[in-house]
């Protein structure tokens, strides 16, 4: 099995579809699967194992567990493997059960890549097929093709039974086991058969009531002797009985002879009694013979008489017929005459017929014309009706028209006012607006007045304020000046000139008053004054504004008032005017519609008029036609008489006349025919009567002659009269029987006579004897004889039985001995083959052992290299463990110590090397066995980490050498050393969301 392409999806850490194409390797057959821990290296092996068998390589994870947890539920978990076995390629696809999906599998055979052939599409079927294809099941696969992580030691450490199983599968040693079984069964068979034979032997001995074969023989001999003795006795008694019987026989015969004689005489007597009777019969016979020829003549005479009578009858009949014919003829003639007389009638009938036919045409015309007339009438009526209707409509229409026209006039009058009304309305509205405006203005005026008043007040207030403020300021100023003076006065010193006046003496310096305003105060006061003044001016301005506004308003109001003199309530007027205007507008619209209707109506009326005209003209023509037709009809009617005016009546009449004519003709014909036939009939009948008369004559003559003949003959024969003759008549067959009877009787009488004669001769000298005595004697002797015979036969039976028993017994003995002989061989062989031998090894085990030896040889070679010459693998041979279970245990021979020891004592790295060499050895040997399985691949999952660098080197060397054999070797390892040593690599990387693979070659 060599994998070609592996497609994984949703399996383990592989989320996306991964395609691993092993064919990329080309002819490189050693490659490394490399990647970080947990990236998915072993998963690839799991996938291959799963694809093939539905189980994973370590058998620790189930298919369901392999479903990747990284995928969402839309991605399926599926593994497809394309692989080759020998020269054929296959593809298998599997998916485990997960979620709602059931487990599934499909297997195809790939003959060409375009259409693979589906071999199996269910899991169970696919599994079976895989096992037959590959030749081994998942267990073996795990031990031999894939060395799984941590589990590679299994093959080495496996208990014997399991190793045996694996080897059995690989090397197909099943057949040896079958041989073992067959041997065992055959031996058992023989044993059973032998038992049967023994039982048979015992049965025979029981039946024969002997204890042994010899006893039986002795009995046989004894019986033989007895039999001989009895034979003699039997013979003697037989002779005796024979003689008694003979005697008895003779006596019997004599008695019979005598009896015979008696019987014969009696028979003869009976015959003699009947002799007379038969003599009479003879006479009768003679007479009958005489009468024979005469009967013929009689017969013919009778015939002639019959003929004569018939002729008479005919004659009579013929006469009567003739009479009848005569009558008929007369009647026929009479009728004919009558018919001929009625000729005139015929002629008239014919004439009527012809005239009537002449009318046919005319009548037709009449009919047509009548039809026309009717048609014209109806049309006329319709037309006139129509005209009337139309006229009515027309009137109606005209009325409407006038109505509308009058309305039109009204409406247009109203409509024409529209413009006027519009203008009025406009002016009214304007006036209305003006009044509104006037009101507004008045209001404003009032407001302005108010304001003026207010502002006036304000102005006065302000004036007041200003005055106050001015006063204050003045006071302040005065104070200040005084103050200044005080200040100045303070700074006055005597002797210094006063800054104001320059005096040097200061007698009365201004005293400081308390409330000297500061400059600030003065300023403030000034400011206030200014403010007020400003306000006043402002207010003044305001006031003047308001006054001006007032003036304007006043003027406006005045003007408006003038124009609105006595307008009254403009609003009402406006609404009125609006109403009127609306009416005028409506009227306009109405006018339009009226106009339109008027047009339509006018059109209609003209149409109607036209219609009326046309109808009237039509009517005229129709009336004309009608009158024409009527006149035509009248003309024609003149010709045709009343009752024939209709076609039907005419036809009927014609028919009638025709019928009459026909009938007349017929009658004439008939009468003619009758007459002719009747006359011919009459003639024929006269003719026949003549013939019959002649015939009658003849016949009577013949009768007479024959009668005479008969009578003469009768006399000649000796009969007196006819009656006698009748009596003597007898038919021919009767004569014959009578003859026979007579002769028989006489012959039998004769025989009886002879018999009597004979019997007399025979019984001449005999006399009757008593038979009983002889009979008794015979009986006695016979009884004795039979007794003896019975005894003899009994003896003989027993003797033969014994003989049979002896024969059977002999046969059985022979059988037993031969079976024993066979068993001795077969049983021996069977025992040996099934393990009952010095080494407790069964045949199959032996074969397996030798196979295992071969494997171990190859494995040891490799192991030697890998362990630097130290270890070899061997098979344990001690037969301590009983029951044919030995022979397949493994042990390792350590050349350093010279002793073999258990395989389990090897270290981790050493056991890895041992397992590797074991697997390699197995696969090598399997290949070379005929019918072997193709192990073209081997995968090693980790384990190289257990090795030191030198051993790693050696192990790798061993694997590299494998390539030469064309094996595909896949190594899974994370050791970087290997990465450098092996150039074909499959990199597996895990990128957080899933793993991906890539071949680097």
């Amino acid at each position, binding site marked *: 099995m060599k994998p070609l392409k592996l497609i994984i999806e949703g399996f383990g850490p592989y989320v996306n579809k991964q395609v691993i194409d092993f064919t990329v390797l080309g002819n*490189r057959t*050693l490659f490394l699967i490399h990647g970080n821990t947990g990236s998915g290296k072993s998963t690839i092996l799991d996938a291959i194992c799963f694809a093939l068998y539905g189980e994973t390589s370590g058998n620790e994870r189930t298919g369901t567990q392999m479903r990747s947890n990284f995928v969402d539920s839309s991605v399926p978990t599926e593994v497809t493997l394309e692989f080759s076995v020998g020269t054929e390629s296959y593809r298998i696809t599997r998916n485990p059960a997960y979620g709602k999906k059931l487990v599934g599998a499909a297997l195809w055979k790939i003959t060409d890549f375009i259409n693979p052939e589906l071999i199996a599409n269910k899991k169970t079927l696919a599994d079976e097929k895989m096992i037959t294809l590959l030749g081994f099941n998942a267990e073996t696969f795990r031990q031999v093709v894939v060395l799984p992580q941590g589990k590679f030691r299994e093959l080495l450490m496996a208990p014997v039974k399991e190793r045996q199983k694996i080897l059995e599968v690989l090397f197909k040693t099943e*057949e*040896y086991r*079958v*041989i073992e079984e*067959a*041997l065992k069964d*055959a031996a058992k068979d023989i044993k059973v058969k032998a038992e049967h034979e023994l039982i048979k032997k015992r049965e025979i001995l029981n039946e024969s009531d002997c204890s042994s074969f010899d006893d039986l023989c002795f009995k046989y001999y004894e019986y033989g002797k007895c039999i001989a003795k009895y034979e003699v006795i039997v013979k003697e008694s037989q002779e005796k009985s024979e003689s008694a019987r003979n005697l008895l026989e003779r006596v019997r015969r004599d008695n019979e002879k005598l009896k015979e004689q008696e019987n014969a005489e009696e028979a003869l007597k009976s015959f003699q009694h009947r002799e007379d009777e038969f003599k009479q019969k003879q006479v009768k016979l003679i007479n009958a013979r005489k009468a024979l020829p005469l009967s013929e003549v009689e017969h013919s005479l009778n015939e002639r008489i019959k003929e004569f009578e018939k002729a008479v009858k005919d004659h009579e009949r013929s006469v009567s017929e003739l009479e009848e014919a005569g009558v008929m003829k007369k009647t026929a003639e009479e009728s004919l005459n009558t018919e001929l007389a009625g000729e005139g009638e015929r002629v008239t009938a014919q004439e009527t017929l012809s005239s009537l036919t002449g009318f046919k045409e005319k009548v037709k015309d009449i009919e047509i014309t009548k039809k026309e007339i009717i048609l014209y009438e109806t049309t006329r009526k319709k037309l006139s009706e129509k005209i009337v209707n139309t006229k009515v409509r027309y009137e109606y229409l005209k009325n409407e028209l006038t109505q509308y026209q009058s309305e039109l006039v009204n409406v247009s009058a109203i409509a024409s006012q529209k413009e006027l009304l519009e203008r009025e309305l406009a002016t009214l509205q304007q006036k209305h607006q003006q009044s509104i405006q006037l009101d507004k203005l008045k209001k404003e005026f009032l407001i302005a007045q108010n304001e003026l008043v207010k502002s006036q007040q304000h102005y006065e207030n302000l004036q007041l304020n200003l005055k106050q403020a001015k006063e204050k300021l003045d006071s302040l100023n005065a104070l200040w000046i005084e103050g200044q003076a005080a200040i100045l006065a303070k700074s006055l010193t005597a002797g210094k000139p006063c800054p104001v006046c320059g005096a040097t003496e200061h007698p009365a310096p201004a005293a400081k008053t308390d409330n000297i305003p500061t400059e600030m105060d003065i300023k403030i006061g000034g400011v206030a004054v200014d403010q007020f003044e400003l306000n006043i001016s402002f207010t003044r301005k305001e006031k003047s504004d308001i006054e001006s506004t007032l003036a304007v308003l006043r003027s406006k109001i005045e003007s408006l008032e003038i124009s609105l003199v006595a307008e009254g309530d403009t609003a009402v007027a406006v609404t009125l005017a609006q109403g009127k205007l609306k009416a005028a507008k409506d009227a306009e619209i109405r006018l339009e519609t009226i106009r339109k209707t008027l047009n339509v109506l006018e059109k209609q009326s003209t149409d109607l008029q036209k219609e009326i005209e046309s109808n009237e003209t039509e009517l005229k023509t129709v009336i004309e036609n009608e009158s024409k037709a009527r006149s035509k009809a009248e003309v024609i009617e003149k010709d045709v008489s009343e009752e024939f005016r209709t076609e039907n009546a005419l036809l009927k009449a014609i028919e009638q006349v025709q019928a009459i004519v026909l009938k007349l003709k017929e009658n004439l014909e008939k009468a003619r025919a009758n007459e002719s036939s009747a006359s011919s009939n009459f003639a024929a009948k006269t003719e026949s009567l003549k013939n019959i008369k002649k015939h009658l004559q003849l016949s009577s003559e013949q009768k007479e002659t024959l009668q005479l003949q008969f009578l003469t003959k009768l006399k000649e024969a000796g009969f007196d009269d006819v009656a006698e003759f009748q009596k003597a008549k007898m038919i021919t067959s009767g004569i014959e029987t009578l003859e026979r009877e007579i002769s028989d009787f006489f012959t039998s009488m004769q025989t009886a006579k002879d018999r009597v004669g004979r019997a007399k001769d025979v019984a001449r000298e005999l006399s009757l004897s008593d038979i009983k005595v002889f009979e008794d004697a015979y009986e006695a002797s016979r009884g004795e004889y039979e007794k003896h015979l019975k005894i003899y036969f009994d003896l003989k039976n027993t003797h033969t039985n014994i003989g049979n028993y002896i024969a059977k017994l002999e046969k059985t003995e022979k059988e037993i001995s031969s079976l024993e*002989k*066979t068993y001795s*061989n*077969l049983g*021996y*062989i069977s025992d*040996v*083959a099934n393990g009952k*031998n*010095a*080494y407790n*090894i069964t*045949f199959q085990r*032996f*074969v397996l*052992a*030798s*196979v295992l*030896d*071969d494997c171990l*040889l190859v494995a040891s070679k490799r192991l030697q290299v890998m362990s*630097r*010459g*130290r270890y*070899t693998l*061997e*098979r344990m*041979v001690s037969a301590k463990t009983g029951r044919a279970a030995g022979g397949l245990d493994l042990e390792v021979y350590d*050349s*350093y*110590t*010279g*002793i073999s020891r258990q395989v389990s004592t090897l270290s981790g790295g050493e056991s890895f090397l041992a397992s590797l060499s074991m697997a390699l050895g197995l696969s090598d040997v399997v290949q*070379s*066995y*005929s019918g072997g399985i193709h192990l073209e691949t081997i995968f090693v999952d980790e384990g190289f980490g257990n090795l*030191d*660098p*030198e051993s790693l*080197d050696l192990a790798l*060397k061993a694997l*590299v050498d494998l*390539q*030469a054999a064309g094996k595909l070797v896949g190594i899974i390892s994370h050791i*970087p*050393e290997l990465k*450098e*040593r*092996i*150039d*074909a690599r499959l990199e597996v990387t895990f990128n957080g969301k899933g793993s991906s693979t890539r071949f680097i070659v």
Partner: protein
Amino acid sequence: MRFIHTSDWHLGRFFFGLHLTADQEYLLKEQFIPLIKDTKPNVLLISGDLYDRAVPPLEAIALLDEVLYKIIAELKVPVVIISGNHDSGERLAFASRFLSEQKLFVFGQFNPDVDSVTISDSYGTINIYPLPYTEPVTIREAFSDKNITDHNTAVSEVLNIIKLKHTATNRAIVMAHVFTIGGETCESERPLSSSSSAGGIDTVNTSLFNGFNYTALGHLHRAQTVGNNTVRYSGSLMKYSFSEANHVKSVELVDMDKDGNCTSERIPLTPKRDLRQITGFLKGILNNENRSDDYLEVTLLDEGALLNPMEKLREKYPNVLKIERPMLIKTDTKFSNSLAHKNVTKSELFSCFFKEVENKDLSDEQKTVFNEILNNINKYNQ
């Protein structure tokens, strides 16, 4: 000009579980460095496989460091190194640009523009062209030439380019780490491409090296000349496998004259512990030979089982590494294992089985009985 050509030091190698670093140290320090001191070459050429592994053990690195220092700094001899198939070229060539200024020329990666080291002597210049071990794939991709599929074509392509670039008046030495046709291999050489099948693809024609004054090759562990007299393998530093037990380990001391003609001398190296093979009976070996620390492979001619031979031998020879037992018939099992019952019929097989198990032959009657059963089974199967 005088130079020393050596290769395949395999520092850090394990041998049967033992570190050989101590022995290598002995060789390098006690023999090789004195040799250099004595012979005073102009340059030292090491043609690859300096380390045994891509990531060598620390002692090996320390050793190399010390040795190179001694040679370059103390003895003032420039050293040209190329990487081999055991080394990791990239790792080896770390800081090579700096190192080259100090006369340690390390070439670990393939350079499509040819590298060269120039040495001048009194007669002119000598170009040394180093070709570190490269996979053909790399060369193919560098030249984008699809015809380069194996080592032969790769090397020939590279050499052609070198030849083109070389100034004809100068003398030329090529260093390469290849496996030439006609070379003799031994156990301890790792095949060049792990993907190559046995033989053929990884070999190189010796004719490619025609035209160079000297070709300093590395990879094969036996010192040998291939083809031309000037194409030589210097051999490994010491014996690395028992198949080399009869090799003589040496380095090449080459003198090149003004015309490029080379005369070379092999200078042998004696390691502290030799690697050799002993054959004999256990008793004899134990009695006769003197105690020795050499690495030994002992072939015992005794038939039958021996008790603890390794222990006994190691008393005398503590470095016995391997015991061969060619006489040991593995049929102290009762069953001959060359049955080859693939070609044997079942009844013959059974007779064999019978004989083995019961120690007597199958009688004719028994044979017939067996055959009958066999026939029945076959009939039943059909």
